[in-house]
């Protein structure tokens, strides 16, 4: 399994947008510099020809650089210290690929160890020394966080439990030491592809784990009537509150609340929402992103083709947008940029661009600090 760079292709894409004269004047070194300066977002994608990859995008959503992936990717995490990103395979994938924005360094593939596969999400320690990834100890139906040494070729140096099943997104909290994990509660095993094996008995949870000791700090479950509400995606707002989005595996006619807040030492709190907004999610939240500067949190539903922005302090829905197959989200200025499974990238001001060859995967990551 190797990741292959395709800088030429993306250079062409960029140049098509930038104009040919610009291209002729650039040396490779200057090109790398431009990429460095302009790289703002990262995301996994599928190309219309069926191939997979991950891309670095400019502020306006132009593809600056892309790598190929052997199979479908999911989320990307970024280390601002070494300026490297890691894209994780979508579950039950067995690879993660480390790449820089410019293609100067060859991408490095991390293979999951025997008995584990990735769930699609990961996070770096604040100093960039360690990479943490949610993984499946599938024979034991137990979630783990794999720990990788980023300074030693991303060698896997250990793991600790997530104290639940089917962990999905994880977040490093503001103290730099506590990792929040959304245990989706769903059992899967690679012998059966992506089939969900325990829908009747699933039990999702939200946990805080000490990344140094691996100890459980807090564990919270939803009321038993909501045991089929899978907690999947999260982000942290300006006050340090974690916002999470859920996917409901029970009957489609049920209308459970799908967005919740988690504060240290407190029970999970589901957010009441106007019925029309809630109904528009079709029981599925695909991505959650906070814009701390703006004091807002956005959630998307690719099933419901809807995006909603919530005021983090009051919990009020302040805006909703209908957008076909919207899922990827990242803070952008005072709002959010969104990407779709139909290949669109939509800026906060409503400007849309579409890369005809690309279909964007579920997540977008901001890799540059807001200007």
């Amino acid at each position, binding site marked *: 399994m190797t990741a292959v760079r395709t800088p030429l292709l993306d250079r062409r894409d960029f140049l098509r947008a930038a104009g040919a004269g610009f291209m002729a004047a650039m040396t490779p070194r200057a090109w790398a510099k431009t990429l460095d300066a302009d790289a703002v977002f990262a995301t996994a994608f*599928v190309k219309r020809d*069926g191939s997979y990859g991950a891309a670095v995008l400019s502020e306006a959503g132009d593809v600056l650089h892309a790598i190929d992936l052997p199979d479908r990717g*999911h989320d990307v995490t970024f280390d601002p210290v070494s300026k490297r990103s890691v894209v994780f395979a*979508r*579950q039950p994938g067995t690879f993660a690929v480390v790449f820089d924005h410019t293609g100067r360094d060859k991408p490095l593939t991390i293979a999951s160890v025997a008995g584990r596969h990735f769930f*699609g999400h990961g996070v770096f320690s604040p100093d960039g020394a360690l990479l943490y990834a949610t993984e499946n100890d599938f024979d034991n139906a137990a979630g783990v966080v794999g720990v990788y040494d980023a300074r030693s070729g991303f060698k896997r140096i250990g793991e600790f439990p997530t104290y639940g099943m089917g962990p*999905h997104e994880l977040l490093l909290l503001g103290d730099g030491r506590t990792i929040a994990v959304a245990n989706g509660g769903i059992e899967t*095993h690679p*012998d*059966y*592809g*992506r*089939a*969900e*094996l325990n*829908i*009747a*008995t699933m039990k999702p949870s939200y946990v805080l784990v000490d990344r140094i000791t691996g100890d459980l700090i807090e564990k919270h479950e939803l009321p038993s009537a909501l045991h089929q509400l899978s907690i*999947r995606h999260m982000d942290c707002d300006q006050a340090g509150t974690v916002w999470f989005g859920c*996917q409901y595996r*029970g*009957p*489609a*006619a049920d*209308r459970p609340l799908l967005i919740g807040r988690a504060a240290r030492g407190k029970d999970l709190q589901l957010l009441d929402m106007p019925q029309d907004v809630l*109904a*528009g999610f*079709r029981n*599925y939240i*695909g991505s959650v992103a906070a814009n701390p500067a703006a004091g807002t949190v956005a959630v998307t539903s*690719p*099933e419901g*083709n809807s995006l909603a922005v919530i005021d983090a302090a009051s919990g009020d829905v302040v805006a909703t947008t*209908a*957008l*076909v*197959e919207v*899922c990827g989200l990242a803070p952008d200025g005072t709002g959010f940029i969104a990407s*779709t*499974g*139909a290949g669109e990238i939509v800026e906060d001001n409503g400007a849309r661009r579409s890369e005809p060859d690309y*279909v*964007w*995967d*579920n997540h977008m990551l901001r890799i540059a600090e807001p200007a």
Partner: protein
Amino acid sequence: MSKRLAFALLLPLAMVGPSPASAEVRASAVIQRAIDGFIRPAYANLRDHAGSLTKAVRALCDAPSQSGLEAARAEFSATVEAWSSAEIIAFGPIKENNRLERMLYWPDRKGIGLKQVQAALAGKDSTASDPAQLAGKSVAMQGLGALEFVLYGDGGDALAGKDDPYRCGYGAAVAGNIETMAAEVDEAWRKPDGFAALWANPGPQNPLYRDGTEAVTELVGDFINELEMVRDVRLKGFLGGKPEGDKPRQAIYWRSQNTTNSLAGNLSGIDALFVASKLGDALPADAQWMAESIHIQLANGVATAKSVTGPIDKALADPVLRGKLDHFALITSSLTTLIGTRLTSEFGLTAGFSSLDGD
């Protein structure tokens, strides 16, 4: 682009939308045909077979005999076939009250369900042989997997005699539970103001399907998901990449030798649903071949699965029969591409990419 515009008539997209009214009518027609032409008959058929199965098991309990046991086993196989066709409808009333899992708990990867059934049999748990109480027990104890063990598992032959009335009584309770669920689902789909009415009448006020695209995406997504289920869960759950990786004891219904009947039933259900809906009629002339090809390949998959007969462990050990199972896998993969990529792209749907995958 011209193709997409042609499809906008059927599936209104946000970007291209002629008269929404006519578009809704046509999406509705596809869904109504799916309901009347496949879904309602499939559940009615299941209900009939589950009823006969319950009668046969009760008759066996009343007068144990070898012929009575054979009759009950024959009804079990017929019910499995009816369920295998109907179970590809993985949405709607079957999703309520955990019915999908209660009808068939599978895979039982760690043998938890099997142990629960064995414990009930060993302990002669009277609450498990009471249909009303059984419905509230572990999902693994109340469906086809449990009944298969009762009829075909260790000790099952004793049902021909009078030595194990508890086992028969528990089997009758399971059969009755299956019949009850089949009847509930059948009735729910028949209700004039029930789920069928919601699905066939998308619109802004509809709580489940706000437009024709959402209604048709449910159908197309079901084809994609069920093909993946048949291949990745049912087939690859026991068929290894190489013979050394085969796990015949992990095969669904291996005890009753219904493994390939079930695989055939699944594809047969998908084919019947696809044909009944006439979804293919919505394709433009130059893409009509897709509908034809989907139907031919589904029929080919059914025939291929049915040509593998006898115990599944023997089939796996026979290179010719094993090759047929490989071929079955190939057919389902080809169908996944055809429906999940090509058909959806003709319809301007991106189904199968970001929204139908549960990530």
